[in-house]
């Protein structure tokens, strides 16, 4: 049983991993055929991974309703929202437009999903201003450098800021857009590249660990 439960999955990850890895260095027909088969299969397998999120969302809200926990009534709206998308989709075969006319699916997307999803993240704009006021502390030389870079970018990205810069620092004959260009293409590149290289090696190591079965947390517990 241990063989089926543990060793075969580890064998799958090893074989698929090594073959896929090798396909980078082996260009011939067999390698291409292997990759093509895998690509098509991975596409389908991943499509089922979506069900994981769906089921766990449904399950957790079903539990809330069943146990009548605080605010269980709101959980009903999760199902309402779901049906508001799926029912129109079934009615129209997944089409948002038919003969230049928006279908009920297109309507649901535009007026429900679009409004909700976009607003959820737009709310953050308010928090960023209050953070700027209440917790942006220039408490060290490092924070000061951070502040200066942020200041220049916030100012220089809008035309009004450019006008202000030109009227105060116009004598330098350096536009704020040039300063931004420099920040983004010189020191920021150095900073990001330094972070990136370490992370990239970390990711390579993690991937190797996965292929060789050393890292298997994603497999869940025995």
């Amino acid at each position: 049983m241990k063989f089926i439960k543990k060793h075969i999955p580890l064998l799958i990850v090893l074989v698929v991993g090594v073959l896929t890895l090798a396909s980078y260095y082996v260009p011939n027909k067999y390698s291409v055929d292997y990759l093509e088969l895998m690509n098509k299969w991975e596409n389908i397998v991943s499509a089922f991974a979506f069900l994981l999120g769906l089921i766990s969302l449904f399950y957790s809200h079903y539990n809330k309703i069943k146990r009548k926990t605080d605010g269980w009534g709101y959980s009903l709206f999760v199902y309402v929202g779901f049906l508001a998308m799926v029912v129109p989709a079934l009615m129209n075969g997944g089409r948002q437009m038919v003969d230049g006319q928006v279908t009920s699916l297109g309507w649901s997307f535009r007026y429900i999903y679009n409004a909700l999803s976009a607003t959820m993240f737009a709310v953050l704009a308010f928090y960023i201003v209050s953070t700027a006021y209440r917790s942006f502390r220039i408490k060290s030389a490092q924070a000061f450098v951070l502040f200066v870079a942020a200041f220049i970018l916030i100012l220089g990205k809008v035309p009004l800021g450019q006008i202000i810069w030109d009227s105060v620092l116009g004598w330098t004959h350096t536009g704020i857009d040039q300063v931004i260009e420099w920040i983004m293409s010189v020191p920021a590149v150095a900073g990001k590249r330094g972070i990136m290289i370490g992370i990239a090696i970390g990711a390579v190591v993690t991937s190797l660990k996965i292929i060789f079965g050393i890292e298997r947390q994603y497999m869940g517990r025995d």
Partner: protein
Amino acid sequence: MTEPWMIAGAWLAAGLTIFLFSFLYRDNPFFKIAEHLYLGAGMGWWFQVYMFNIWKPKVWEPLMAHQWGVIIPAVLGLSLVTQFIPKISWLSRYGFTFLMGYGAGLAVPAGLSTDFMNQIAGTIRPFSALASMTPFAIFNSLLIALGVVCVLFYFFFSVEHKGSVKKVSNVGIYFLMVYFGAAFGNTVMARFSLLYGRFDDLASFSSRGSFYATQIILAVMVLYFLVTGFTKKPQQGEEEAH
């Protein structure tokens, strides 16, 4: 969809938008409803996209056409779902290992080439064209190289950082700070853009054509807060609690 539907849509969208924004003032049932709708609607949208773009054309239709090859990935895919059934949850390993092995196999060489070799090459390549570079460009290339080395040194954990070593890694921090500052500045812009997008929609829903949806719903929300504000005293600390 006809004209009345579009107006109804404008009302619905304006309402949901304002409900979500109302959270900024205080948590309230309207926000909670909109928030839960969001969770469900997002899943619903994804579900129908998967259904009509992948499950139907890539699994169901081939099966109907007796192309039995798709059974293998479909079974592997379905095995993922067994995760929720403790007794047979080990079956899901077959699907996961299949996904992870492929992903890891692709990632290793690509990571080495894109984020490692190419980055070294990018840092040193400018120096092969020294003759045609302006002094400022040479300075910039040197600065990038210096910055990269210092930042890497800051993240180098195998030697103790003291003395001159510490100085090098300190220089690295400043490069990081410039990068973070740029990120901060750009984030401000990004978040405002999103808010602008919502406000722009709200402005368009406030027109006569949509029967002033924005104004009316906004007024109703304000009224709601006034009424509830008088009837129940907010608990201590609640205003901080968003």
